[in-house]
C-alpha cells in the first residue's frame, strides 16, 4: 500500500503552462503563519498559476511524515526547527519552498504569573518551563536566552504541555513558567495578568526565521514547474501579508478559531519575502549548539531555489 505516487499525475493544465501537477494537498497548521496560503487562495493567486489547492489540518510535520513521504501531502507548513530535525534524522531531505514568518518582538516568549517569585530570567534555575513539544523551537530559543543569563539548559526542566493547556497549568502552578506564542501570550496577559519574562525572539535570537512552506527534495525534482508556480503564488501573498495588517486580521479568523478581536490585537511576526540561507544557518547552529541535532546542517541545502 505504500507508494510514492502523487494524487494526480502531470497533465497539462488549462491555466498552468505545462505544470507537472495541478492538484496539491497542503498541510496547514491553524496558526497565523498559514495566513498567506489562505490569502493566496482567496485572491486567486493559485488559480492564476493553474494550481488547485486543498488543505489538511496538521499539527507538526513529524507525525505526518509518512503522508509526506508517500505523497499524501505535497507541501506543508513547518518550523525551521522541525525541518532541520527531520533532515538531521536522515529520514527525508526536505527543502523550504517559501518562508512564512520571521521573528518579531512579542511573538514568542516565556511568561510567568503576576505574583510569581520569578522576577528575572536567572530565577528560572531549577524551575519547570512548559513547552509545546520537546526538542523544538521552545527549548532552543529559551536555552539561547538562558545562556546570556549564565544558565545551562540542564538548569531548567522542559515539560511538554500543549499550548492550549499551558495557561491553566500556569494558573494551577503545576509549571513555573511557560514558553508561549501568540495568541496565547496576549491571552495570558489578559486572563492571568501574566508577565512576559523573556522575549525569546530578541538578542541572540532576534529576527530568527520561524517557519515556511516545505516539501521533499524529491518532490521538487519531480515537479519543478509546479514548485515554482507554488512559490510565485505564495510570494505574492507574502507581500500582502507583510504590508497589509488588515488583510491578515480578516483572513486569520477564517481558518483558525482565533476570534477576530484577538486576531487584530495580537503580535505577529514579519512575513518575509525571500529565502535567506544565512539567516537559516543561525537556526541550524543553535540546534546543533544545544544538541538537538547531531550533525551540523548546511542551510544552503535546505532552500529551494526561489523562482522568478
Amino acid at each position: 500500500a505504500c507508494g510514492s505516487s502523487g494524487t494526480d499525475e502531470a497533465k497539462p493544465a488549462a491555466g498552468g503552462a505545462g505544470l507537472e501537477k495541478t492538484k496539491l494537498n497542503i498541510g496547514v497548521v491553524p496558526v497565523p503563519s498559514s495566513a498567506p496560503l489562505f490569502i493566496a487562495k482567496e485572491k486567486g493567486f493559485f488559480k492564476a498559476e493553474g494550481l488547485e489547492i486543498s488543505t489538511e489540518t496538521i499539527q507538526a510535520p513529524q507525525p505526518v511524515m509518512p503522508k509526506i513521504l508517500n505523497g499524501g501531502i505535497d507541501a506543508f507548513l513547518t518550523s525551521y526547527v522541525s525541518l532541520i530535525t527531520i533532515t538531521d534524522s536522515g529520514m527525508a531531505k526536505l527543502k523550504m519552498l517559501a518562508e512564512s514568518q520571521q521573528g518579531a518582538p512579542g511573538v514568542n516568549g516565556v511568561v510567568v504569573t503576576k505574583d510569581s517569585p520569578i522576577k528575572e530570567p536567572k530565577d528560572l534555575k531549577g524551575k519547570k518551563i512548559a513547552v509545546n513539544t520537546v526538542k523544538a523551537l521552545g527549548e532552543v530559543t529559551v536555552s539561547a536566552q538562558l545562556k546570556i543569563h549564565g544558565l545551562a539548559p540542564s538548569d531548567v526542566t522542559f515539560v511538554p504541555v500543549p499550548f492550549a493547556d499551558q495557561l491553566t497549568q500556569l494558573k494551577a502552578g503545576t509549571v513555573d513558567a511557560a514558553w508561549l506564542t501568540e495568541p496565547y501570550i496576549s491571552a495570558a496577559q489578559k486572563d492571568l495578568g501574566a508577565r512576559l519574562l523573556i522575549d525569546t525572539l530578541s538578542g541572540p535570537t532576534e529576527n530568527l526565521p520561524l517557519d515556511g512552506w516545505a516539501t521533499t527534495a524529491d518532490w521538487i525534482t519531480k515537479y519543478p514547474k509546479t514548485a515554482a508556480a507554488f512559490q510565485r503564488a505564495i510570494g505574492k501573498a507574502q507581500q500582502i501579508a507583510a504590508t497589509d495588517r488588515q488583510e491578515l486580521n480578516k483572513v486569520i479568523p477564517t481558518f483558525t478559531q482565533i476570534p477576530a478581536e484577538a486576531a487584530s490585537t495580537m503580535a505577529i511576526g514579519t512575513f518575509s519575502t525571500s529565502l535567506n540561507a544565512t539567516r537559516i544557518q543561525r537556526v541550524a547552529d543553535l540546534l546543533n549548539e544545544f544538541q538537538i541535532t547531531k550533525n551540523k546542517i548546511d542551510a544552503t541545502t535546505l532552500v529551494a531555489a526561489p523562482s522568478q
Partner: protein
Amino acid sequence: MKTIVSRIAWLWILPVVLVAWEVSTRAAQAVYFPPPSVILARLHELWFSGPAAHVFLTDEAAHHLLPSLGRLVVGWAGACLVAIAAGVALGRSAVLCDVFSPLIHFFRSVPPPLLIPIFMTMTGIGTPLQLTAIVFGVSWPVLLNSLDGARYVDRQYLETCEVFGISRFRRLTRVILPAASPKIFAGLRISVALALIMMILSEFIGSTEGIGYRMLVAQSELDVPTMWTAIVLLGILGFVLNAAFLRFERHVLTWHRGARKTD
C-alpha cells in the same frame, strides 16, 4: 524438562513471525520499517547494555524504564481494586447502577489525551498525574465487566444465599465475586495491556521521564529505530505481564476450568 520443552514449543509462532518480518522489511527497505535485527540491536544498545552490577540496565533504562514500570504496576493494581469494587457495587444495586451509568459511559468515552491536562491541574506534574491517568484509563473495561458479571449471577445462586441467610459480606465474597470472576478476569486481561498503553499516553503530556517520554522524543527526532525499540519493549512487557496474569488466573479459576471442560 519435558514440560519446559513443550511449553516453549508453543512459541513457534514467534520465530516464524520474526523471520517473515526481517525478510519483508529488508526487501521493502521502507524508512518506517527497520528490520527487527536493527531494532533489537538498538534495543540492546539503548536499554540493556549497562554494567552487570545494574542487571545490564543502562542509565537510560534506569531513568526511563523503571519509573514507568513502577507507575504501571501501582496504577494497574489501584485501577483494578477501584474498578472491581465499583463494578460489583453497581452491578448489585439497580439504583446505583441507574444513577451512575450515564456518567460512567460518558467518562469512559472521553479520550484520555483531552482529559490529562485537566487532571494535571489537580495533580501537578509527575507520578501522581501518571497514576491518575493510568487508573482512569484502565478502570473502564474492568468496571464494565465486573458490573455485568455481578449483575448477571445465576438467580438460583442468589436464592440459595438468601434462603440460607448468608450474610451480605459472605454473599459478596463467597458467591457473587466467584460467580462473576470469569467476566472480571476477562476485564482484567484487557486491562493489563491497556495499562501499558495508558502508561505511554500519560507520559506524552507533562512528563519528563519514562518510556512514553522517550518515545515522544524519538518521534520528534524521527528516530525510527528508537521508536521501534519502545514498541518492541511494550510488546515484550505485555507478553511477560500477560503470562504472569494467566498463571494467576489459572490458579484462581481452577474450579471454572474443571466445571467447564468437556472431554
